[in-house]
């Protein structure tokens, strides 16, 4: 697990090369089509197609193994909980597929449709948004927000949090190693005692982070951050025809598959 660039994973994939604004529009599209499918169409095949498209986007970006493990675990968990809990809210009727013997719970095809569609509604937007962060530099995302007329002082806050993530991880690693060298055994003892031992890591971490926050404030002030209403960038984002084509391709994929799946497939 290395986060030396924060969530960003350097690369030269298609998703790395397209404009961050196009990626944000794509993620919003995934969210909109997922909401439409999860609440109105409730077609697990269509939900699966959207899920597959975001997975392809993620895999083509070649992220680190950490992301595969994270989303693999997340997908399994969400599918499990969805299949367990959604049937309780399923509409009456439908073909019974499975009956639990002692409890007498009936698992109908409507319940399965609902559970799978809702699971994909949860998963697809999460992976799409994560793909944006994996393939975009925080500075480019910041610029995209500013271009969309977000006040730049406001847009700087989430980007700063992203920027601080690798710093915090490095700090935790250094402090943990330092405390281990002073015989702090973080892996031994009961869970409450282990949590208590982490106080020895959290206290120096908090103090160091507060110090760096103060230093950052001074650095921003000294550079005149917030003095001007508009902000310029040394490397400006450029919307190309390539970005438009990618977006059109995704819209076409989602609309055509929606029509095909709902009109020509029974499920």
């Amino acid at each position: 697990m290395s986060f030396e660039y924060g969530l960003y994973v350097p690369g030269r994939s298609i998703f790395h090369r397209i404009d961050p604004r196009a990626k944000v529009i794509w993620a919003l599209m995934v969210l909109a089509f997922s909401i439409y499918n999860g609440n109105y169409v409730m077609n697990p095949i269509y939900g699966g197609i959207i899920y597959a498209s975001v997975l392809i986007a993620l895999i083509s970006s070649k992220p680190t193994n950490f992301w595969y493990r994270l989303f693999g675990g997340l997908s399994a968990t969400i599918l499990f909980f969805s299949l367990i809990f959604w049937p309780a809210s399923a509409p009456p009727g439908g073909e019974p597929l499975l009956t639990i013997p002692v409890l007498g719970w009936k698992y109908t095809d409507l319940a399965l449709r609902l559970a799978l569609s809702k699971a994909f509604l949860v998963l697809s937007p999460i992976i799409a948004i994560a793909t944006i962060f994996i393939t975009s530099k925080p500075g480019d995302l910041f610029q995209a927000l500013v271009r969309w007329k977000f006040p730049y002082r406001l847009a700087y806050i989430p980007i700063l949090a992203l920027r601080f993530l690798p710093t915090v991880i490095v700090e935790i690693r250094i402090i943990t190693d330092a405390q281990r060298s002073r015989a702090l055994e973080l892996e031994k003892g009961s869970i409450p005692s282990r949590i208590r031992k982490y106080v020895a890591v959290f206290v120096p971490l908090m103090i160091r982070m507060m110090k760096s926050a103060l230093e950052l404030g001074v650095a921003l002030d000294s550079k005149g951050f917030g003095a001007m209403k508009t902000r310029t960038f040394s490397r400006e984002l450029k919307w190309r025809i390539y970005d438009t084509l990618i977006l059109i391709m995704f819209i076409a994929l989602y609309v055509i598959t929606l029509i095909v799946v709902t009109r020509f497939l029974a499920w």
Partner: protein
Amino acid sequence: MKDHSLRSSKSVFEFYLWGVLVGSIWCSLYISWWLDLAQGIVGLPPLFIWGWFAPFVMVNNAIVTAIVGPALAYVLYPPVKRWGLHWSDRITFIEKS
């Protein structure tokens, strides 16, 4: 909670009452309420939200805050206060005349 130093029994009691008990319950109810309200967008089942997620967040918050919170606050309060980073030193209330 008026005294955040955790150096008196009243301060510790108030921390456990508001920070651990009320804070954990409020946090879990607030998140679950939002998840339930935005169910069409988020897609989590109501039974999962109220039957699993809310108690999980409540217990998780209460345990961690109860164990780590007092120790952290006890150690961090003096430097934070000294640097002027405590919220009461950063915010000035406008008094009504």
